[in-house]
């Protein structure tokens, strides 16, 4: 068991390092120069020498290898450098933007999971026999909708037509309703699809017949026997879907004009603010890796068979 945890944590760190390195190389290879973009602006009225001084201060012309070593060292100590555009520490920008994105992503993820479970439950209870095929087609519908279009449509329908949720100066939580839905719908689709397929598959397994033969009702079997077995594979997918969640956040924050990591990333790309981009890439990678590590470590806890395979005999 210790070996398993050790190797998974090691893999996670490796992925993180690779994400840092690849993004570093790509950002360095980008044509253009953030220092020039900002300070060549005639409004500043800076001379060529002054710009050269600034460049030296930012170490913009130093050796790439040195910069790499320097940056990775700084990252390890929690120093993400300074944003050229805003002129403040990147860590300060992150501190300002991260909480709202975490709230958005967390709520969206919870909403997606809830939606997936609702779809799965509705299509498996007897009362909805006729609606079953409609409910089962929902995931395919959800997964085909582009996030930006969905966001705009939700605003159109719920805010402008029905006037249910304000988008202009909404309350703190009110303003989250539509963005959360925008991210949650497409994410819930693959979860629901896998859940539905697994439930159908588990229902054909012999132990379900044995449970029925004990006198257990269909509902009892569904909750006490099928649910956990069907849910396990969804966990793996949930980890992977987290990546989509981050991508969804960028678009959604832009569409709804929310401050967050997504909108920060968008600005940083516009101004080639390398330090900010590098930090966002590493933060996103860290979040992705952590979630998947948690899933991997959770698996043996939920599935006794896996625990045995890993040598953790009770």
């Amino acid at each position, binding site marked *: 068991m210790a070996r398993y945890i050790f190797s998974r944590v090691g893999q996670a760190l490796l992925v993180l390092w690779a994400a840092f390195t690849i993004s570093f190389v790509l950002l360095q290879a980008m044509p253009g120069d953030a220092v020039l973009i900002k300070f060549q602006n005639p409004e500043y009225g800076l001379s060529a020498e002054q710009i050269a001084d600034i460049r030296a201060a930012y170490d913009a012309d130093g050796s790439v290898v040195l910069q790499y070593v320097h940056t990775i060292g700084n990252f390890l100590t929690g120093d993400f450098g300074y944003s050229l555009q805003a002129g403040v520490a990147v860590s300060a920008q992150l501190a300002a933007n991260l909480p709202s994105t975490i709230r958005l992503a967390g709520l969206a993820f919870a909403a997606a999971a809830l939606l997936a479970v609702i779809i799965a439950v509705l299509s498996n209870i007897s009362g909805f026999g006729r609606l079953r095929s409609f409910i089962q087609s929902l995931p395919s519908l959800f997964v085909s909708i582009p996030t930006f279009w969905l966001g705009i449509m939700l605003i159109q329908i719920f805010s402008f037509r029905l006037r249910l949720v304000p988008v202009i100066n909404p309350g703190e939580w009110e303003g989250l309703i539509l963005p959360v839905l925008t991210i949650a719908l497409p994410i819930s689709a693959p979860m629901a699809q896998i859940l539905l397929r697994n439930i159908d598959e588990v229902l054909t397994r*012999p132990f379900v017949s*044995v449970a029925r033969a004990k*006198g*257990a009702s269909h509902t009892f079997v569904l909750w006490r*026997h099928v649910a956990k077995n069907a849910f396990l594979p969804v966990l793996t997918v949930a980890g992977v879907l987290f990546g989509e969640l981050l991508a969804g956040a960028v678009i959604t924050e832009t569409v709804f004009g929310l401050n967050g990591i997504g909108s920060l990333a968008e600005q940083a790309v516009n101004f080639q603010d390398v330090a900010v981009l590098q930090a966002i890439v590493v933060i996103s990678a860290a979040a992705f890796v952590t979630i998947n590590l948690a899933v991997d470590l959770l698996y043996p806890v939920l599935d*006794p068979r896996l625990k045995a395979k890993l040598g953790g005999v*009770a």
Partner: protein
Amino acid sequence: MTISPVGRLEGTVLPSPVLDVSGLTISYRDQSGTRTAVHGIDFSVAPGEVVALVGESGSGKSSTAQAIIGLLPENGRLESGSIRLNRQEIAGWPQKRLDGIRGSVISLVPQDPGNSLNPVKTIGKQVAEILIIHGKATGALADARAIELLERVGLNQPALRAKQYPHELSGGMKQRVLIAIAIALKPSLIIADEPTSALDVTVQKHILDLIDELRREYGTAVLLVTHDLGVAADRSDRLIVLRQGRIQEQGPTADILANPQSAYTQRLLADAPSLNIRQRRVAAVAKLTQGEADDIIIVEGLVQDFGLGGKDKGLRALDNVSFRVRRGTTHALVGESGSGKTTTIRTVAAFQKPTAGKVIVDGLDLSAPPRETLRLLRKKIQLVYQNPFGSLDPRQTIAGIVEEPLLNFEPMARAKRTEIVASTIEKVGLPLDVLQRRPHALSGGQRQRVAIARALVLDPQILILDEAVSALDVTVQAQILSLLDTLQRDLGLTYLFVSHDLAVVRQISDTVSVLNGGKIVESGAVEEVFEHPQSAYTRELIDAIPGKKYPLHASRPISTNSGNI
């Protein structure tokens, strides 16, 4: 479910049966329409009686059992007929109402213990559940009752077992757990649906003994569904022979075995290896005992270790295994699961390198095989597997499947290949029109013939038959065994026959090695080993073969029908 109750005679003086089935008709719906699986059958089960429902696959025996307990698959339908349980008509009851009697009045011992327990729930919870569902106990009391039940079915350390998960128990132990669940509420009828077909023969005996014992103790009636006539003969009071959804005959077991009325039952009895102490097999090689020893397979001091990775200590799967197989004969490897049969044949087929010891196949030393030796070996030695459904690629035509091995060796003109494929298909007794079909269009027996054809197409000298007839119905099994016998004589083939079924081994082999825990405990000529077993383990294995109660003493010839199935 809709049913139209059939009028019945009432008022017999006999004790009223626990189960009384009449006019039971079951159908299945699929894309091609509705197919009737059971055609209006009638039978009954008296209190405390064991009634065996025997038949081959597709006979409707499982459908009948499922219909009685109200658990037909979703596309199955109880068309008509009546099912009376303790004189109460339950056919047509909605599932909610059936929930009340399932587990308490009628219970199930399922076919496949390996998949019949929820893998993510503890044993104790799964046993306690039946008490909780029927409101007989809750919480700690239910858990304590579960442990008592586990003890009653003969599990050692029941308190520990209750905390374990299914994967931590062996197949036999799992079946005991399922029996504990089935008897928990002392039902009046237990449906045992092939309760031991997935278990080793010695475990089978213990499980059947346990069911017998509990049945006597509780006075429970048992409907035993089985394909194994030996098991049915040993364990039942009455026998019902089903074929294609119709009852061929039913009556007291002893009467049917002594004097079967229908032609089908006669054939079934003749084909059942366990019921027939066969006539001495005519040795495949006439001069078996004369002349120079011509051993095509020599295995000496074979050791196979499997590392479990890391610093875990490895597992010794084979320990000093030695045997020789004479050219043109059949050598059987018998043993229970985990005995090392499969490991042995995998090493002989050069799928893995031995840890120590020598394997020589037709003069080729496999201990340190160069690449070219391996290629030569592949032409000499071919395998036929147990499962004729899984071992054929469903997307290829039969012609493609049989042709494939030819493509792996020296180039050959297409016409020549087609010719070889056609002649091989004829050799295994299949009509040529199967060539353009795909596996799903063939029966189990036909598929196994295709698998044999694929093995033969390279003109090998050795066939490794890995439980090659174990998944087949007895009549089909008899035909395949007969085909193998013919092929051996015609082509001078050597067989390495791996099986857990000693009755079949006795029928087809010349020599035998008995494996237990990776060691050979006994080997020699088949008659010698079976008549005078030297080791206690071999004796136990032989004692466990079902079908001893009514030996038929070779009064019937082995079916020689090797025609198309």
